[in-house]
């Protein structure tokens, strides 16, 4: 069953057609990668899914409901969480507090005035956050300032912040961009662990072929703002059109 359906989405920036007639559907409990060379429109597409950009045409349905025109927090409340290209975390807060905030969002909704409750008394919330931290092996760092974490740990923390909400769809925007090979492999392992443990639907925007072929069950290749092919990783590897689009870029 398709959890996310993108139908005929187009987006122009002045004279530039960033996206034109994009059709895409992400099936439940699969890892779907969207790849493509620089400027193919991957990030634009993602921004249309999360409420940052409004496409000029087409529709985006999440579980049959349109996400277009909704604000980022509303889309999150529908069950879509997002990991950023550079980890977006709350640097001034402790690691545990970073996880508490998404748990509160899940429990209390987009806004709740609770000025006279006490964080320390929210035992269920804290337990849930601690379980999550244990799952990503960060329980010992719970009191650390998030800003002082290593880059890899920041990524791990951000992932945990998304996962603790048990999203129906997790969007990852180039989760390994700018990472060293070792960090990239760690991230792949982390994602694989998560996939083994949970029934999760992920859409990954990625440039790194190694990451894509390690994780994805389904791949859409985007070129010049329009989907070229959609297939399994095995077929994509050998697809002539894909090779052409990447113009000699090797599948590293």
């Amino acid at each position, binding site marked *: 069953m398709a959890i996310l359906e993108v139908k005929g989405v187009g987006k122009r920036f002045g004279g530039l057609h960033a996206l034109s007639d994009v059709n895409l559907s992400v099936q439940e409990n699969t890892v779907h990668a969207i790849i493509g060379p620089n400027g193919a429109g991957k990030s634009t597409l993602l921004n249309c899914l*999360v409420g940052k950009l409004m496409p000029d045409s087409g529709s985006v349905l999440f579980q049959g409901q349109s996400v277009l025109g909704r*604000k*980022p*927090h*509303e889309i*999150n*409340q529908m069950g879509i*969480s*997002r990991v*950023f290209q550079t980890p*977006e*975390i*709350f*640097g*001034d*807060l*402790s690691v*545990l*507090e970073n996880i*508490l*905030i*998404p748990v*509160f*969002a*899940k429990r*209390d*909704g*987009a*806004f*709740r*005035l*609770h*000025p*006279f*409750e*006490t*964080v*320390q*008394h*929210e*035992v269920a919330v*804290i337990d849930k956050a*601690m379980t999550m931290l244990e799952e990503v092996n960060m329980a010992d760092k*719970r*009191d650390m*300032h998030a800003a002082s974490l290593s880059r890899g740990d920041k990524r791990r923390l951000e992932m945990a*912040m998304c996962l603790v*909400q048990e999203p129906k769809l997790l969007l990852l925007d180039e989760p390994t961009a700018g990472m060293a090979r070792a960090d990239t492999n760690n991230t792949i392992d982390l994602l694989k662990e998560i996939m083994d443990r949970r029934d999760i639907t992920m859409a990954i925007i990625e440039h790194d072929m190694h990451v894509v072929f390690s994780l994805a069950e389904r791949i859409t290749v985007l070129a010049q703002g329009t989907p070229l092919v959609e297939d399994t990783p095995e077929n994509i590897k050998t697809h002539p059109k894909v090779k052409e689009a990447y113009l000699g870029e090797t599948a590293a």
Partner: protein
Amino acid sequence: MILGLNRRDTRFLIIVILLTLFTPFLMQPFSEGSALAQFNGGYPDLMAKVAIFGIFAMGFNILFGLTGYLSFGHAAFLGVGSYSAVWMFKLLTLNVFPALIFAVIISGLFALIIGYISLQRSGIYFSILTLAMAEMSYRLAYSVLTPITNGETGLQIRATDPRIFDSATSSGSPNLFGLELSSSFKWEVLNHVFTFNVGFYFCAFVAIIMFYLTLRIFRSPFGLILRAVKSNQTRLNYTGHNTRPYTLAAFVISGLYAGLAGGLLALMDPLAGAERMVWTASGEVVIMTILGGAGTLLGPVLGAGAIKYLEIIFAKINENVLHGWFGFLPDGLEDFIVFILSRFTGEGWHLTLGLMFMGIIIFLPGGLVQGGQRIAAKFRRKAPNDDDDSEHHPKSTSHVAE
């Protein structure tokens, strides 16, 4: 667990309560007639001002310290609070409670409107919008709204006021169910004069309650989310929190504190003028908060205390006092030193404040609280941590602790 606080916070609250209750002693350390007696600050007017501006700064800190939204217009709510309180004195009764309640309600509504408009933008644009709103309020109070504000003269109590709940015999100053706020008890002991004033203790009592509420807000999920607004608004939005109502709630809460402070100012001196809303008054609360330590619990109160105390003390040091101090020097040198120092004292107090503010910003960006923490750290280097209740609780990071 007392009052929903953990052991550490309870201890902290008790210390603050004791400090507040013993202010008449603490601010009167020098005996009468001694050369240092002029540095005593233990008179009711000053002590009450410290409590009142402490409340003002505490509220401002909920907005600025937690969310990072820098408002340059909070004096508007102070002014609105004062006007509202004086109107209650005029129309209903000289009892303090209707005045304070009305001050809080009206300033809250005012903050809701100004906050809703200003929070359409963030960063510097938000600051400019609040500044513009406050200046508009100030100008309106001087011109169009004269029937309500009594323009330049200021709003004051008159014998001809209706005061429908007061009997004809009631006196002409604000009271607490008959107990006049201006009444004091003086205690002379060991060459010291300690003044216990009803008004001060009332303000102190309100300040302690507000401090307790602030502490609760800081430790609540709401407070946590406000700190997240300051840290990373993008992440907060993509985590499913709608930042707009959170920031608006913080804005209104800080407006309520400011209105309450304005109401208390009117209790101590039942006269409300538009100058209370002028932009320098808004700037003063910013300085108090930063000087003490933005985002900390005690910082804003310390900042308010330091500024109000020094303001009064420096105002007293005029050229004659300086000549007295440096009389032992040769004439030419004496005149020169007095000339230099007098630029920084008396009327020149703001010059000293400016230098002090610069020094704090450069050397102690965390304010007086950070200074205190550094000194404390020097004293108990390597002393065992006493976190007796940290088994399964998030530990607060340093800038939200005391």
